[in-house]
């Protein structure tokens, strides 16, 4: 074997590594039957109706730095008079590492409601519905692969009471017949495929995408450029 062969093989492997998709996990609510569209967790409490979709654990960039992110879409409807809020400090995800070990708690890194960045508590007025996009960042999130489960926790403040809540999402295996990883890549302008957020698209910098169209949940990522 010539000396050139291992070098060529190493280059090929490096190229292959560059081209291979970054680790990514798609999730459905724990215990929910498989279906082709994204699963929604719905909790009807006395204070509010909460819908949660886990848009996955993926690699994207924040301030140009590559990081792992858990993305959750939350729709909260206040079904009574009086305002309620989800205390920002109470919102977190408990991530079970793919390599095993104890859960890792990730605090809320960034929150949006429609086109508006939310810097404080997540506020919902009486008899109204508000959409939220929640991002939880951790560079090591996908170091060992997609976490097998993600637990979203929060505290709802309203009517002088504090009501804790949580919902768990389970990883959709790649061999699941409805796995979004089998889907063709999403149209990057529209962003959704079967309700999943930009499947098949390598996500780049996270920032609100400019769009003429009003949507409940906007897009926050451009496709990763080749230079990266």
């Amino acid at each position, binding site marked *: 074997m010539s000396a050139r062969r291992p070098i060529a093989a190493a280059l090929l492997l490096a190229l292959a590594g560059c081209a291979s998709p970054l680790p990514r996990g798609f999730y459905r609510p724990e215990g929910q039957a498989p279906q082709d569209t994204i699963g929604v967790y719905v909790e009807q409490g006395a204070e509010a109706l909460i819908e949660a979709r886990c848009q996955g654990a993926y690699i994207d960039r924040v301030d140009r730095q590559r990081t792992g992110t858990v993305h959750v879409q939350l729709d909260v409807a206040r*079904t009574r008079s009086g305002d309620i809020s989800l205390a920002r400090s109470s919102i977190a995800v408990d991530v079970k590492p793919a390599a095993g070990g104890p859960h890792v708690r990730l605090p809320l890194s960034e929150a949006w409601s429609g086109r508006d960045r939310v810097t404080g508590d997540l506020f919902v007025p009486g008899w*109204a519905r508000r959409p939220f996009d929640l991002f939880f960042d951790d560079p090591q999130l996908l170091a060992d692969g997609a976490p097998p489960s993600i637990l979203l926790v929060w505290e709802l403040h309203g009517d002088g009471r504090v009501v804790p809540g949580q919902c768990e999402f389970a990883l959709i295996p790649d061999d699941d017949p409805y796995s979004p990883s089998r889907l063709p890549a999403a149209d990057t302008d529209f962003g*959704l495929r*079967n309700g999943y957020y930009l499947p098949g698209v390598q996500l780049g910098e996270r920032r609100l995408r400019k769009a003429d169209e009003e*949507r*409940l949940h906007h897009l926050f990522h451009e496709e990763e450029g080749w230079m990266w």
Partner: protein
Amino acid sequence: MILRILLVALGVVCLLAGGAWLAVDRSAVGMLRNELAVRGLQRLVQVESVKLPSLEEAEAGGITLNDPRTGLEVAHIDHLSVDVSTAEGWFSPRVTVVRGGGGRVHVWRDEDGLSLVRALDALLATFSSGPDTGEEPAPPPEQPAEPKPWHGAPAVILDDLEVTLTQPDQKPLVIPGCALRVNDTPDTVTVDVQAGSDGGSAVLRFASGGLHHLEVRGVEITPVCALFLPVDEQELASDLQPSGVLDLDLALLPGHGEATRAQGQLRDAGLAPSLLPYPVGEGTLPFLFEDGHLTVSDAQLSFPGGTVQGSLQADATGFTLDASTHDAQFRADFMQLIPHFDDIKWLKPEDGGSLDLSLRITSREGADLDVDGWGGVFMERLRVGPSGVLVEDVVGSLDIHDQILDFHEVSGRCAGGAAQLSGTLNLHTGDFKADASLFDIDIAHLDRALEIPGSESRNVVGWMQGSAHAEGHMGEVRRTRASGQVSVRGGYLWRVPVLDAVLRSLSLARPEDKRSDSLAVRFRVRGQTIYIDELRLDSESLSLQGEGRVSRDGDLDLKITPIHMGGMLGDALRYVQRQIVALDLTGTYSDPHVRVRPLKAVTGPLGDLWDWITGLFGGGEKPASPFIEEPDDEPEPAAPPVSATPPGAR
């Protein structure tokens, strides 16, 4: 001998006395009737029979008290016994006690008031004024008169009476086992009525001029009891249909209705207003009527699923009603409370959810009913449209000011996405404006929800967004004006019956499912017709452009131009093909008919040949148009928002 004479004389005297008593007894009815006539009471009181068991006692049967105004029977007593006092001499007998039992009393109201009160007033006036001799009243004495013994009305004790209250358009109330006590004192005649065994009591106090005071304790009432109220309040009571157990203290100044004062409460109260779909009740209504004003304060009434707190201020010029409910359970029949309900029957909520409402309803003479307030609603399930598309967890709020109902941020979950509606309704004119938006609707889900035949196996996919602005007048569909846009992306739409028919008519194979089709439609609504101003469907192998119209019943009249997009040849063919054929799409969504039509470039025999070929795919004679030509003489509505503001974006 002398003894015999004495015995015979005694016998004769006894016979004469007995005969005389018998004669008096037999003629007692006539005597009494004559006495009544002397007192002017022959129409007021009628007696069927009289017996005189002793010198100080009389019995009568079948005594009837009539309304002095109409002559109708007010009361009938089966039997009556009268104690007569001769303390002031044989020729000045005085009735001291009247006892009786069995019989009936009728109470009704006419334009001059209560018949029973009128009859009793007339009867008691007789006792206080003495016989009608027709003589001029005696001049005032120069010297103060000697005090005379009190000669008032006799005490009256009547038992086992059946009292019937009647009023037009109300169910009569019959109270059996009633008892009546009348006690006359120098200042007052007191009438104590016991309504059955446990039906409560009423005490009426009469003084000069008529009824002065009425005290009611624990009397069970029904709407017909409103006949005891002044006329204005009767109308209010007729609207509200009150029932319950009444405690009442009513003070009257005869001839001065403005001085009437009533205070009390209605316990275990129930109301059945005609505008409510069900009665409300199980509450307490404290009320005060004074100086012509009726005040109900701190009232609480239950209705199915909640409690309403309220207060009422009313007078002859109108009323102000404040009502609020908090955290009530939402019921489908609440929809009946919405003005123009008949025009929004395509909205069918189901029971379940919650409701807050706070309203002030003001009615003033000569002015429209004014409703101010706000509310919030949460409906667990709402069916929309003829197919009953399910919208879940609908939440929204509304307010009403100056006859404008403003409903904002009403949103719900629909077909995997969200639907949102906001707008205004002028309650006075019926004019409305609305903005509706759809976000992330899963059209596979929607296709099934619309229950169009074949949806179970069609496997159409895609995600729909849309928005529309509409204006119009409730109940007048032809005046509806709307415009908007709908788009579907990330989809596969070629199994939609209309598009499937297009493919078959063009003899094209169904494109591969890559879930990358996109559809954009811009539309206007004029009355019952939806005009498709622009339709564009793009997929990897074929695109369609079109325009046309769709009737409210789903009848299609569309012109479609196909554009092949497959491969490099697609670009070259696009222009040529657009010049060659267009598609006439008729029929309905689920049963479309496609006629392939050559355009100007292809006419004559070739066009006929094309028609013959494409006739195999459903072409042929065009049926009569199902479209109503909608007038479009009004200016175009304002350009629709390309997309409405979603919840939370404000």
